């Protein structure tokens, strides 16, 4: 994968950062879709009353809607960063085998799934 990377200390040419970035990109659509489908936001924001609940929380009567998007982002960034960091510890002979096409391919089925989840909006 990264056979020709220069060994310098700058972030832009760091092998560890390259592996982190590749795995972060691959993990993001997977974790985000899982968070959305599984109902795993790190927190729930209630904009009507400006309150934050840890994890998933239903909207309460007379308090307006609940927003999960921020919580999904938090869950995704933390999990993807953790996976990326773990991958950056892998020996190069393994990290070099991570297929780069997954980076741009995985967001496409992720978007298809997310669009499907929004079916109530399309069929209302």
């Amino acid at each position: 994968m990264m056979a020709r990377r220069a060994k310098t200390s700058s972030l832009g040419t760091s092998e560890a950062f390259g592996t982190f970035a590749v795995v972060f990109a691959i993990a993001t659509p997977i974790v985000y879709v899982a968070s959305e489908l599984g109902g795993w936001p790190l927190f729930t924001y209630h904009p009507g009353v400006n309150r934050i609940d840890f994890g998933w929380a239903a909207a309460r009567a007379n308090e307006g809607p609940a927003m999960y998007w921020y919580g999904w982002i938090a869950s995704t960034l933390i999990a993807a960063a953790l996976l990326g960091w773990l991958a950056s510890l892998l020996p190069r002979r393994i990290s070099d085998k991570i297929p780069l096409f997954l980076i741009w391919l995985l967001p496409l089925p992720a978007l298809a799934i997310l669009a499907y989840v929004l079916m109530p909006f399309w069929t209302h």
Partner: protein
Amino acid sequence: MDILLDTISVNTFWTILLIVHALLAVATLGALTHQAMSVAMPVRRAAGPRGFITRFRAVQGAGYATAVCVLWVVTMILGAWIYTKYRIAIRIPLERTGYWKTLGFFELKEHVAVLGLGLLPVYWYFWQNAKNPDFDSARKAVTILLAAMCWFNFLVGHVLNNARGFG
């Protein structure tokens, strides 16, 4: 914040935020479109007369990467802030008036923004190593995908603002 809202109305405040968000989106869109054109249809020769399209795609893509990452993140932070107001002041009235598909596309826009965010570190890394042929295909694909995402988000945001903006 209180001092600011003593000076301008709440609607004006959110409208200003929305305009700044839109202007940042325009900058992101321009940079990514230039860059995507430069990788999708690179200019092979400098000789001969150059038209607008040739000059448009003749940019040095590497110079845009950091700016695109910063713009994407700042635009998204502003959008996330506006989203809190949108959820109450825009979405609920649009639900009442039956703009379901518009709302659905807006929800999809938010998902696209997150998936784009996940691509930024590797996108930046690929462009920092623009001379590495191992990354050529992936860099091209990621850049074009980000440009497509940006166009989608820009158009959906524009249409939603037409359906119901602040103010």
